[in-house]
Every structure is written in structure tokens, then in C-alpha cells.
């Protein structure tokens, strides 16, 4: 190994180990959050390390990485493998709109593409840091310790099971640290190590790591000291009698059919209610309620009789699902019986034993099973659900006038108590005033909770007394509460601006695990009991909204907008009108433009999307050709230089450039110059190789210019001839 310069093979090994460590950071992120597509991030890490290995110049590497980043965004959010004019401009405008949001510090409103960009940037910086640690500091202990802490904190406080991760991190981390130490020591003492020597030095380390980890893995495992640390820690910090101080009611979290009086404290209840095997996270709905009393929710008696459904048959509005849409299958296993079935959005079929009949109360959304005209408790059932996709463009075109076109009667979903304080509806009007579409109005209320100074808390949440209104109290006085507060407030505010809305009860997605068969399983306990909002959007029907801070709306919205998405928070009418005027004029131009640019690439895109393999092989081939041209630059660059320098006036400045390009070319040719070699020493090596003393003459002239500072006696024309001759000889 050369001092200062790290052996490429060694570096490759280091990067591979660091890659594994970084992977361990990504795994829990993907498992615990909604981040799908771990692949694109891993590729990014891989590419970054590869560029490092190839010692690529930054001005090549950075643009390539940015292109990759942009492509990833494009791929994730448009599901198209190739850029189109429309999608690129849309993506850019979406990203640009975030800068205003960032400057105002409204973190909750940052759009998903921007979040992805920020995540990429974070990864990028981390990789840069790791490379610095490996190549310059030759010490990775800090990163290793951080990884261990990160993994163990996640293992302790989240559902992430880090059993395997701890082991992998241990082995890779120790190897990384050990090997770096060996290389650092050899550099410190100026010992050059060849591969064999390095291997010999690493062998004891390898034995120690493998031996100790093998020993550790066969040792019996002691159970955890705390079954679940969070309740334990909470009881230590807060004392035993949680929430009893202010005389409020402490109830256990969980599904409770009675919601007439909301508020009060919660205590945690880890009882498993049901588990569901389904690839994606789902909100599990039980029922909706329509009447807000000022203290809580009630359901006005339903007049219509329930609909009978045969298990396994399509039902409801979802029967007109498009054939192309993906159908997911959810397998639900009930542990604790609930009065009604739980079901995700997009449910189209419910499969269960054939000797029961399912009944559905459409108004409340309740499902239950009947056997021999008695309510029957199912232990398990399967659900076919189609993923719902909403077009943002269409959503933003909805208008309040569209309600008149709907046949349904919304009176019950616009109900509000007579004594609802004025300021609630004033606030609702103020929040939604600047928005045109129904969807944006609803969204603005949903977003309001993120920035209105609200906090999420389950303890000592106020219960309205006397004439107090539950929503009014939360919105203006306490601003502290849990899902019921947020969801009820949103429903009330929606109704206050004449958007039909109802209150939904059910369960949040729960903790995600990988079960023994390798499938994604969600465990839903009483702690996941949740409430949210459904608003009726004309043309779309009932759409879920998630106002509770800390929860995220899982509804898939397609970013299919064509025009500028100006800052959604800016309540500026004029600005919002302008783009619309432009919209009327612009399309003609865009169309014609598409005819030239887009129509040229579209067939290629179509062809490639049909023949993916040809696309992949083709791009690999193109990359290979580019790489070949680049790596053979030693053959063609000198000729180019000779040609271009011949036209210029021969003088010292040109000669300096010529001489330096000759040094580079000789290096590419294979005659290496170490940094500590003087030019005349190098010239001797070169002249020994080629014969003659051309390099010696060139070098003497160069040294005289550089170190002597005078060039008046030099004959530029003959030097240029010698230079041309030598650089062409050095092309091999």
C-alpha cells in the first residue's frame, strides 16, 4: 500500500463494509416509516461509493448524482422510467414551491418530492462524511458508535426488531474499525505494506471478529429486562397515578362505541385486537358518526335497513373498479372481538366462511356477520381492496357548486349544534377563504393543525363543562389533545363552511412486522384506536382526511398537475388568478412544442417501456461506450492537443500548458510519477523508456522557467517540435 494513496482494493473493501452499515440505517427507516423504494437509496449509496473508487472528478460525479436523484424522484412520483417534458416541469415547480414553505418554517407542509430530495441530501452528506472518515481520518469509530446507538434505540423504543441488525452491525463495524486501524498504523510508521503483508496483519483480526461473534451467537440469550420500556419509563418519570390530579376521567385507549362525551386522559393498553397481513399500511375503518352534540358524537337512528352481502361478492360503490387497478389482499385475524368488522379503504370484497351472511349499514359504514339471523363473531376474514388513486388535478378542479349536481342528501352531514360559538365558523371561513376548490379547502383545514400551535397529548385533555363546546375549547383554549379533538374539530369546521363531513372511528395502521412467512404483518392493539375525518368531495365521494398531528394521510394523490403549483399557503387571490389566465393561452404553444420535442422522444419511450431489457442492455452499452472513450482518452487527447496548440503562439505560457499535458499523458501511458519525484528524476525515467533525451531537454527548459524565472534564451519552436514528437510517442 502506498503511503497517502490508499490501495483501491482496500478502499473497495472499506466501502463495501460501510455500505452494509449504511444499509442498516436505511432498513429501519423503510420499515418504520412510509418510505418505500429502499432500492433507489441503496443504488444512490452504491453509486456514490463507486464514484469515490473511480476517483471521478467532482464536476462529473456531482451532475451524475443530481441526474440520478432527479430520475429517482421522477420514477417514484410519476412511475415513469423516462422523463417527459410535462413531468419534469411539474417536478421542478413542485420542488420550487417548497422553498417558500421552508423559509416560513412550516415543516409539515413540505411536499413528498421535497422530502425525498432532503433525504437524498442527507444521505449524500453522510456518504461524504464516511468517505472522509475512511480515507482521511482512517477512523470510523464515531460512525460505528452512532450506528450502534441508533439501532439499539430503535430496537428498544420502536417496533423495529434489530436482532439480526445488531449482529450484522457488530461484525461489519468491528472489521471496518480493525482494518482501518491497521492501515492507519502502517501509514503512521511509514511502513509500506503489500497485499500479502496486509492480509497477514488482518488475519488475527478476522479470527477475533469471527470467533467472538460466533461465540456470542451460540451463547444462550437472556430475555429483556423490560418487556416494553416505554410504559416503564413513563411510570418512572411521571409517577404511578397518571392523570388523576385534575379530577379528569382516565379511560383505557381502545374502541368504545359510546362517544357522547369526549375528552379526558388515556392510559396505554397494549392488548392486541387484530392482526392483518397486507403489503401496505391501511387505516382500518369501523363506523362513522354524523351528529355532533357539542360534547361528543352520536349517530341518529338509521332508518334504512342494512344490505345483505354474500361473502366473496363485489359490493357497494366499489363494484365499478377499473380492471387495471391493482387488487391487494388483506388477511385479518381477530384476537379481541369488536362489534363490527374492521376494513380498509377501497374494500371491494370480503371473504369469509360461507355459512354467514354479511350485513352492511351504508350510512354508518358498519359491517357485521349474521348466522341463523343472529350476530356472529368472525375469527378471521379476507378482504380484497383496490388501491385508491386520486388525481390532484381533478381534485383541484372541484367547486362548491358541484354539490348541487349530487343526488345525495347531505343534511345530516352538515349538522351543527345551534349553540356552536360563532368564532369556530369564523375561523373555518378564514382558513378556507383563499381556496377555490373543495379539496383545497378541506386540505387547508387539515394543514391548519400543523401550524396553529397545537400539540398532541393523551394526558389530562380537557373535558368541556357546562356550556363549553368541545371543539371551541380545543381550537381556542387548550390547543392540546388527541385524535378525537383534531378529527372532531375538522369535521365541525368543514361543516361550518358547508362541506359535508363525518366523523370516522377505527384503527390506525399499527406496527409493521415481517411475519414468519416473510409477509408484511400489521399488529393493531388498543393503542391504535383512532378517529379521523371523511369529507364528501363532489365527483369523488367520501375521502379520508387526517388532521391529527403526528399521523399521516395515506391517501394516494397523483401529482398530475400541468401548471405552476404556486405556494399553497399564500392567500393571494391575484397571484392565483394569473396562472389561470396564462393557462388559457399557453396550451396552444405547449401543444406545438410537444409535437416537435415530445413526439420525437415518445416513440422511443413507448418502445423502451415495452422492451425493458433492450432498454437496460442499451443503456449499459451506451455507458460502456462512453466509459471506453473516456478510458482511451490517452489515445486521442494528445492528437487533439497537438492540433490545437500548433495554432497558438509558442511562448512560455503555452509551453507550461504543453509540458503539463505531457506529464498527464505520460502518466496515462503508464510512466508514473510519485509526488516526491523531481521533474528531472522523472525525465530520466521517461528518457530511459523511450531512449534519447527529449524529456530531459523539455524538463530543463521547464525547470528554468519555473525555478529560474527566466525564459528569454529558450527556443520555443524547437521545444514545441520535441514536445509534439514525445507526446505522440506517448500515445503508445
Amino acid at each position, binding site marked *: 500500500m502506498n*503511503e497517502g494513496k490508499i490501495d483501491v482494493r482496500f478502499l473497495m473493501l472499506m466501502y463495501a463494509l460501510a455500505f452494509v452499515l449504511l444499509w442498516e440505517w436505511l432498513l429501519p427507516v423503510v420499515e418504520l416509516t412510509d418510505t418505500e423504494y429502499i432500492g433507489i437509496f441503496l443504488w444512490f449509496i452504491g453509486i456514490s461509493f463507486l464514484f469515490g473508487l473511480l476517483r471521478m472528478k467532482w464536476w462529473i460525479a456531482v451532475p451524475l448524482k443530481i441526474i440520478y436523484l432527479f430520475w429517482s424522484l421522477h420514477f417514484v412520483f410519476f412511475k415513469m422510467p423516462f422523463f417527459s417534458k410535462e413531468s419534469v416541469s411539474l417536478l421542478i415547480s413542485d420542488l420550487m414551491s417548497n422553498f417558500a414553505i421552508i423559509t416560513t418554517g412550516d415543516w409539515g407542509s413540505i411536499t413528498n418530492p421535497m422530502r425525498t430530495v432532503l433525504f437524498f441530501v442527507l444521505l449524500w452528506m453522510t456518504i461524504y462524511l464516511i468517505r472522509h472518515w475512511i480515507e482521511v481520518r482512517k477512523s470510523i469509530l464515531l460512525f460505528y458508535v452512532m450506528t450502534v446507538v441508533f439501532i439499539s434505540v430503535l430496537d428498544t423504543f420502536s417496533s423495529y426488531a434489530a436482532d439480526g441488525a445488531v449482529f450484522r452491525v457488530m461484525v461489519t463495524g468491528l472489521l471496518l474499525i480493525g482494518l482501518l486501524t491497521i492501515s492507519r498504523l502502517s501509514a*503512521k510508521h511509514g511502513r509500506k505494506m503489500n497485499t500479502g503483508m496486509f492480509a497477514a496483519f488482518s488475519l488475527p483480526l478476522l479470527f477475533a471478529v469471527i470467533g467472538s461473534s460466533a461465540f456470542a451467537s451460540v451463547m444462550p440469550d437472556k430475555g429483556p429486562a423490560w418487556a416494553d420500556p416505554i410504559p416503564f419509563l413513563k411510570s418512572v418519570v411521571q409517577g404511578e397515578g397518571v392523570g388523576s390530579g385534575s379530577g379528569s376521567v382516565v379511560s383505557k385507549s381502545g374502541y368504545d362505541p359510546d362517544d357522547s362525551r369526549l375528552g379526558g386522559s388515556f392510559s396505554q393498553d397494549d392488548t392486541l385486537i387484530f392482526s392483518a397481513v397486507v403489503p401496505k399500511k391501511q387505516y382500518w375503518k369501523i363506523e362513522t358518526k354524523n351528529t355532533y352534540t357539542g360534547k361528543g358524537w352520536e349517530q341518529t337512528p338509521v332508518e334504512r335497513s342494512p344490505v345483505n352481502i354474500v361473502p366473496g361478492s363485489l359490493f357497494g360503490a366499489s363494484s365499478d373498479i377499473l380492471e387495471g387497478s391493482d387488487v391487494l389482499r388483506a388477511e385479518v385475524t381477530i384476537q379481541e372481538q369488536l362489534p363490527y368488522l374492521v376494513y380498509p379503504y377501497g374494500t371491494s370484497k370480503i371473504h369469509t366462511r360461507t355459512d354467514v351472511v354479511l350485513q352492511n349499514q351504508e350510512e354508518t359504514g358498519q359491517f357485521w356477520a349474521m348466522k341463523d339471523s343472529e350476530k356472529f363473531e368472525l375469527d378471521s376474514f379476507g378482504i380484497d381492496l383496490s388501491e385508491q388513486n386520486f388525481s390532484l388535478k381533478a381534485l383541484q378542479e372541484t367547486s362548491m357548486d358541484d354539490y348541487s349536481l349530487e343526488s345525495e342528501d347531505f343534511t345530516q352531514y352538515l349538522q351543527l349544534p345551534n349553540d356552536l360559538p360563532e368564532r369556530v365558523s369564523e375561523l373555518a371561513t378564514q382558513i378556507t377563504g383563499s381556496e377555490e376548490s373543495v379539496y383545497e379547502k378541506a386540505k387547508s383545514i387539515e394543514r391548519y393543525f400543523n401550524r396553529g400551535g397545537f400539540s398532541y397529548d393523551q394526558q389530562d385533555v380537557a373535558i368541556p363543562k357546562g356550556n363549553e363546546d368541545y371543539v371551541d375549547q380545543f381550537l381556542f383554549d387548550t390547543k392540546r389533545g388527541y385524535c378525537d379533538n383534531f378529527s372532531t374539530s375538522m369535521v365541525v369546521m368543514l361543516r361550518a363552511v358547508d362541506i359535508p363531513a363525518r366523523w370516522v372511528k377505527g384503527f390506525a395502521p399499527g406496527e409493521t412486522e415481517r411475519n414468519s412467512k416473510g409477509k408484511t404483518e400489521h399488529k393493531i392493539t388498543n393503542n391504535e384506536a383512532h378517529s379521523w375525518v371523511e369529507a364528501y368531495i363532489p365527483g369523488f365521494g367520501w375521502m379520508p382526511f387526517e388532521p391529527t398531528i403526528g399521523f399521516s394521510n395515506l391517501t394516494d394523490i397523483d401529482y398530475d398537475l400541468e401548471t405552476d403549483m404556486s405556494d399553497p399557503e399564500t392567500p393571494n387571490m391575484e397571484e392565483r388568478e394569473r396562472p389561470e389566465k396564462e393557462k388559457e393561452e399557453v396550451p396552444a404553444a405547449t401543444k406545438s412544442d410537444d409535437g416537435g420535442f415530445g413526439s420525437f422522444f415518445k416513440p422511443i419511450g413507448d418502445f423502451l417501456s415495452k422492451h425493458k431489457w433492450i432498454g437496460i442492455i442499451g443503456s449499459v452499452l451506451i455507458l460502456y461506450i462512453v466509459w471506453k472513450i473516456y478510458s482511451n482518452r490517452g489515445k486521442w487527447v494528445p492528437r487533439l492537443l497537438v492540433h490545437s496548440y500548433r495554432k497558438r503562439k509558442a511562448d512560455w505560457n503555452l509551453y507550461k500548458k504543453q509540458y503539463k499535458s505531457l506529464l498527464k499523458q505520460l502518466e496515462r501511458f503508464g510512466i508514473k510519477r510519485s509526488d*516526491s519525484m*523531481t*521533474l528531472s528524476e522523472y525525465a530520466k525515467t521517461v528518457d530511459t523508456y523511450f531512449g534519447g533525451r527529449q524529456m530531459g531537454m523539455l524538463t530543463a527548459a521547464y525547470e*528554468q522557467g519555473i525555478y*529560474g*524565472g527566466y525564459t528569454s534564451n529558450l527556443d520555443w519552436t524547437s521545444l514545441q517540435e520535441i514536445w509534439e514528437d514525445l507526446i505522440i510517442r506517448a500515445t503508445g
Partner: protein
Amino acid sequence: MTHAQVIDKVLANIDKVMIGKRDISELSVTAMLAGGHVLLEDVPGVGKTMMVKALAKSIGATFKRIQFTPDLLPSDVLGVSIYNPKEMEFEFRPGPIVGNIVLADEINRTSPKTQAALLESMEESSVTVDGETIRIPQPFFVMATQNPIEYEGTYPLPEAQLDRFLFKLKMGYPKRIEEIEVLERAEKTVPIDHLETVLSIQELRELQDAVKEVNVDQTIKSYIVDCASETRNNPYVYLGVSPRGSLALMKSCQAYALIKGRTYVTPDDVKYLAPFVFGHRIILKSEAKYEGITANEIIERILTRVSVPIDRVKL
């Protein structure tokens, strides 16, 4: 005749006597032109004295020789004041140190007191006896020799005094073929007796002035300083090269460049001279001594680590 040609004549003259020692004579002339002194360290009989004599004879300078012994006193080196009954006053009789070229033979065999007297007059180019200071005429060039310190009955020179010498050189045994040549030449005559003077003292002074005109580029200065500061950071080195060492390297590079017929210093000069200038100016840690690493090896290592400036740099 250019400066280089003049010097070449001197070197060719020395070559008539010294066989295969062109490098040592070149370095000695370099030290002389740079106004420094040389410490030759080697076993007896390899031609140290012959070398100095040949040099002295070639430039027609006065040549003095001091053989150091354990009982030599400072006054034996510097000179004494003797009472002159005729003039009724003390009269200073200069010692052997007052000469153009002085061979101080086996200086590590004399007492530290006498060593100090020699080294001080080397540094100051003057002799002080009984409060009277006498300047030693220029050019003044001392070539001291010492037996390798492993030999018994020696007083090793203190490190601080070693840097009074510009170079520390090793002569080494001649090659087989060269030694045969030595015998051949000495078979019938004594070669040194037939040596001619090829350079006058006046010409030598001119050469010494020309050395100061040799250009040292900023990049070269930074390279010298990089090398010097590396010796201070080396894990094996207890005490690195002082700024005086960097200065000495620069001056000797100027002289060497002149010998090579250049008007500017190149990094090759620095690399070539650094071991001779720095070798006796660094003090090694005991670890290095146990591992058998010598100062010159450390300097070689440092030179393979410091990158050579090949372009103008902004400082």
C-alpha cells in the same frame, strides 16, 4: 570562462589525486563556496587528508593542519601572546587555525574545551586571545575529520556544536578498481607534489559572491521548509532541523547550483544535499536507535514523502 568551468578545473585537478571521489570533492567545494565547513567522518586512511591538501593546493591557499590529541590545549589551536623583550610588550603569535584551509584532524580525540575553541572560531571567523580579536582572512574553510564515535578514547562532539558544520560527509572505501588505480599512480611518484594551482584566492572570492546571486524560487524555499518541518514531525525524531538548518540547506543549494552551471536552484539540488545538511542536525529518539534506523534513512524517507513543487504555488 563561466563559473562552472572554473570550478570544473579545480575539481579536475583534485581528480588527479583523488580517485573516484568526485562527489566528495564536489561537496567540499560546495561547502567552501557557501562559506561553510565540512565534517568528514570516516576511518583513518581513506584519503581525508589528501583530499583537503589537494583542494588547498588547487586554489593556492594557505594550508594548515591541526592534529588533535587528548592533551591539546585551546592555545595550541588559537595561538598565544608571548612577551617580546625587545619591544617590551606582548605579541600575539597566531595558532594554526588562522589560515585559508584548515584540516582539523580527528577532532573527537581532543577535550571538549579545545573542541569548543575550534568551533567558536569557525563560527565567528575570528580568534580571541587575551581580549584581542583577530579576524581570520577569507576564504576560511575548515575541514574537520573524526573517527566514527564507536571507537574508543574519543570525546563525541555535542549535537549543538555539530551544526557549526554545513555538511557531514562520509568518505567510504574506494572500489576495487579505484584502489588499484590509487596504487598504480603512487607506484613511482607522489601525485600531490605535482599538483598545480588552478584558482587564485581572488577568483575564489568572486565565486563566493556569485553564489549569492543564484536564484532560489519561492517554490524551492517552500520545498526546503516542508522538508525541514517534516523532520520536526517525524515520530522517530527527538529534535528536528532548526530554521538555521533550512538556511544552511538553501545556501548550499545555491553553491551547488553554481557548480552545476545553473543560475537557479532546482528541487534536485535540495534532494541531493538534504541528507548532508540535515543528517547531523536531527537527534533521533532511542526507539530509532534500537531499531537501527539512521538519521540519513529518516531523511530519505521524508524526501520520498514531501511532494516536489512542479508549478508556481501561491504562498
